[in-house]
Every structure is written in structure tokens, then in C-alpha cells.
């Protein structure tokens, strides 16, 4: 027979009267309080730094809340004026008058879409060509990779409208500089995204092609492209969506599209024209958003099968 082992002997004082070492408890409490205080201090410091950054920014950016309060009425009345024609009638009462320039605007809208489309295609092709040397797992030399990566970084860091400004001087007014500006920016953005996709591929097919004597082009064509193509299309569609928005403002610097008419209407206070063009743009962006989203889902769905 085994004798039971009692943690607390029967008949002994109950456990609740167990008295721990008070010094140890105090030490633990102190450490806990210190940890909490340290976290709180860090938090307060963070908030102070944040507040300092905000106040400095506000001072730099000449934020003037009194001015905003005094003029916020202008904003609401501006929005309100957008809804009325020159003769004071509500825009929806005379749509023919509101959209008097529809044929002209539609032509410009198509031009805008084409700037975005051609720019996206050129950018995607260049991005495709540059993504392989920029990918860590396929590059041949560290120097080549560094050079291509810096180039792509430059292309996407300089805003496209800055490229457009410079190109307008070099190529003359018109949609051509807009297309080139969007193409360069797209090259930078897609080149980076594409190379990230390539870095995440399964390397076994690459090894297989290399082992059977394939050269670099064959490796890319038969081992890499089949793995990445649907992702590439998906990113390109997403970029097209962004580029439609970008192409809409190219006209601000004379690089084609509907932007020029919008800028003039705003500057000359043709309120109903502003609202007409803005609504055209918003509807176009909505339609393109929905269409590209559908196309992307279809692509991803096809890949899953």
C-alpha cells in the first residue's frame, strides 16, 4: 500500500494563512510600477514629439483656422454654385445646357483614357524587361541589380507631373509628353512590383530549365513567366486604374487630356462646366475601377483552377 503524499498536512493551518516574504512582494510591485511608468513615459514622450511635429507643421504650412472658419462658407457655396447653370437654373432641369460641350469633352475624355492606356502599356513592357535584372534571385551581377533598382526608384520617386512639365518643354504641348511621363512613372512602379513577384517564385522550374541547358531567355520564358503572368496582369490593371486618375490632371501642365478644360473652367469660374467635367471624370473612374476589379477577379479565378 502506498501512503498518500499531502502537500499540506491534514490538520495543519489552511493555505490562506501562507505568508509570503513581504520584501519580495514589494520588490515585484516596484518592478511592475517601474515598467508601467517607463511605458507611460515613452507614451507621453511620443505624444509630445507628435504634438511638436504637428505644431511645427502647422506653423510652416501657415495654417490659419480663423481664416478657414471665416471662409468655409466659400467652400459650401462653391459646391452649391457647382449645381447651378449661369442663368441660375438647377443643372438637372436643363441637362442639354449643362452638358453643352459633351462631344468636345468626350473626345478629351477618350484622349485621357488613351494617354493612360498607352502609358500603362509602354510602362508595363519596360517594367517587364527591367524586373528580371532587378530581382535578387535571377540577377547575374550585383552591380546590374543595383543600377536597375536605382533607376526604377528614380522613375517612381519623381512625380509624373514633374516629368510631364519637363517633357512639355522638350516635346511640345499635346498628349505625347503626358504619355511619356505616365510611361516612365509606370515603369518605376511596375518594375518594382514585378521584381517582388519574381523574387517570390518557386525556383524548382528555373533549376530544371538550367539543368537541361536553357539559356537566360529560355529560363525566363519557360520557368518564370508562367508563374508570374497572372500577377503581372493584375498589377498592370491596378496601375491602369491609377494612371487614369493621373492622366486626368496631365492637362494642368499642357500635357493633353481633359485636365486643361477642367483647369480653365475652374480658373474662369464656369461653375456648371466644372461640375459637368468632374462628374464625367468620377463616373469614368468608377466604371474603370469596377471593370478592372472584375477582370482581376477573373484572372485570379482562372489561376486557381
Amino acid at each position, binding site marked *: 500500500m502506498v501512503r498518500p503524499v499531502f502537500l499540506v498536512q491534514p490538520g495543519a493551518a489552511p493555505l490562506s494563512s501562507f505568508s509570503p516574504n513581504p520584501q519580495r512582494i514589494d520588490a515585484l510591485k516596484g518592478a511592475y510600477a517601474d515598467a508601467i511608468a517607463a511605458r507611460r513615459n515613452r507614451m507621453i514622450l511620443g505624444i509630445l514629439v507628435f504634438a511638436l511635429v*504637428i505644431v*511645427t*507643421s*502647422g506653423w*510652416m*504650412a*501657415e*495654417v*490659419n483656422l480663423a*481664416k*478657414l472658419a471665416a*471662409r*468655409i462658407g*466659400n*467652400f459650401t457655396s*462653391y459646391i452649391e454654385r457647382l449645381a447651378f447653370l449661369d442663368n441660375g437654373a438647377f443643372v438637372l432641369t436643363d441637362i442639354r445646357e449643362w452638358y453643352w460641350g459633351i462631344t468636345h469633352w468626350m473626345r478629351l475624355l*477618350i*484622349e485621357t483614357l*488613351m*494617354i493612360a*492606356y*498607352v502609358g500603362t*502599356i509602354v510602362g508595363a513592357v519596360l517594367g517587364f524587361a527591367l524586373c528580371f535584372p532587378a530581382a535578387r534571385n535571377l540577377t547575374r551581377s550585383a552591380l546590374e541589380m543595383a543600377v536597375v533598382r536605382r533607376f526604377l526608384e*528614380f522613375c517612381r*520617386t*519623381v*512625380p509624373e*507631373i*514633374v516629368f510631364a*512639365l*519637363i*517633357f512639355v*518643354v*522638350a*516635346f*511640345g504641348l*499635346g*498628349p*505625347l*509628353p503626358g*504619355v*511619356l511621363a505616365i510611361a516612365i512613372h509606370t515603369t518605376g512602379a511596375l518594375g518594382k512590383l514585378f521584381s517582388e513577384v519574381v523574387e517570390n517564385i518557386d525556383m524548382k522550374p528555373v533549376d530544371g530549365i538550367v539543368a*537541361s*541547358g536553357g539559356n537566360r531567355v529560355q529560363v525566363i520564358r519557360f520557368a518564370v513567366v508562367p508563374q508570374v503572368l497572372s500577377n503581372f496582369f493584375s498589377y498592370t490593371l491596378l496601375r491602369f486604374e491609377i494612371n487614369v*486618375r*493621373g492622366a*486626368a*490632371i496631365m492637362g*494642368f*501642365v499642357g500635357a*493633353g487630356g481633359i485636365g486643361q478644360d*477642367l*483647369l480653365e473652367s*475652374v480658373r474662369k469660374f464656369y461653375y456648371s462646366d466644372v461640375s459637368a467635367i*468632374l462628374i464625367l*471624370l*468620377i463616373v469614368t*473612374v*468608377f466604371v474603370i*475601377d469596377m471593370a478592372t476589379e472584375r477582370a482581376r477577379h477573373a484572372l485570379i479565378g482562372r489561376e486557381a483552377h
Partner: protein
Amino acid sequence: MTATNQRTLSAIAREEGPRLRAAYPDVFRTDMKARAVTIGTIVLLVGLFVYGLSILETTWWRVFLGLGELGKFVVYMIPPNPETLSKALVYVHALAETVAIAILGTVLAATLALPFGFLAARNVIPSWIARFFVRRSLDTIRSVDALIWALIWVNVVGLGPFAGVLAIMTSDFGAFGKLFSEAIEAADGKASEGIKSTGGGNLHQVRFGLLPQVLPLFASQVLYYIESNTRSATIIGIVGAGGIGLHLYEQIRTLEYQHVSFIIILVLIAVSAIDWVSSRLRFAVIGVRQT
């Protein structure tokens, strides 16, 4: 065995191909429908491209001439040189203004978008009508570019960086509303359930169940947007909404190439500095969440 090893893979394919083809017809059959779709898509895309080139007045001659001009500009741009120190200081000040516009605009947009993010989230507002309207308004605001918003705000508060802050704020308000609502919808519902089971109301659930989960995520998104808005803020000066854009615009128009390259280099330095700071902060924010 050695004989097989010496044959090249292509030779094996040539010899074994017909037999394999006969044995597995399904694998080798060309899918005519899929091929037709692929070819049709390519023809459509290329056709649209050619049509685009034709209506956009792009002739090779123009591209060629323009590239020549561009080459000249690049030569003129070297070395970057603001000529006088006072000019350089003006540019640096304008750059600081640009960064200030980006930071302030982003933070204001995030603050304003926070309540709307909750209103547009399915797990907070079950009514689809309310959600639909909030989402569509956010989408409408988002589809108008910051430069257009800047143009409108300049009409309201006058020329200057304040209009730029408001423009960045407005255009990002839409983007943040969408991002925040998606983050809230992806949050774990168990924490909210826990609050509910202990008798918490709707507000308690949002405050103690949802907010602690999504706040670090929001902070990291805000930091990322500050970075991308520094780029947007460099251009809104073109319509007079403050920052370095106005100087850039003027120097390009007056063909002061060395000033242009100086400004572009300043912008590149600023963007990469902000990039560096914000990626470190983002790491810190997400790191704090995990411990």
C-alpha cells in the same frame, strides 16, 4: 544506361514524343477555345494601343526630336546649382513647407476618416443602406485627384500652403475611410464578443474590442501615406497651393535647368529621408503590438 544518359533531353523528347502524344492525348490536345481567347485579347490590346498612338499625335519623328531636346536638357542640368545661397535657402524652406503640408494633411485626413471608417464597416454598422452611402461618398472623394482638390481649395482659402493641407486632407480622407473600414472588417470579433458578454454597450465594444486591434494598423497606414503624400505635396504648388512645386514649375518654365535639377535632388533626398524614418517608425509601431 550510359547510352540513355548521353542522349540530350531534346533528343529524348524527339524520340519519345510521338509515343507519349499517342498515350496521353488529353494532355497534348491544344485547347482551341483558350487559345482563341488569348489571341483575341492580344489583338484587342495591340489594336487599342495602335489606335491610341494614332489619336495622340505620336509620330516617331516627334519622339526622336523630343529625345534630342531632352538629352540637351540633361546636359544643361549638370551640375545642379542654385547659384546663390539665398536661392538655395528659399528652396529648402519651400521643401520644409512641402513636408509640413504632407504631415499635417495626412494626420488631419486620418483623424477625420476614423469615425467614417467605422460607419463604413460591416461589423459595426449592419445596415447596408448607411454603409452604401458612406462608401460611395468616400469613393467619390477618392476619385478626384489631390491637384483638383487643391485647385478648388485655392479658390476658398486663397493661395498658399494652407490650401495644400486642405487638398491633401480631402483627397486622403476618402482613401483612409476605405482602408480603415477594411481593417475594421478584418478585425477579430472575439474581443468584441468578450466585451459584450461582460455587459459592455456598443461604444464599449468599439472602444475596447475593436480599437486596440486596429489602431497600430492605422498608425502604420498613416505613416505610409505621409511618405507618399510628400510626393503629392511637391506638385500641388503648381496650382498655387504651397510647397516646392511652385518653384519647380517656375524654374522649368524659365528654363533654369540647373535650378530644376537642384530642386529635384532636394525632393529625392527629402522623400528618401521620410521613407527611412517612416519605415523605422512603422516597424516600431507593429513591433510594439506583437510584444
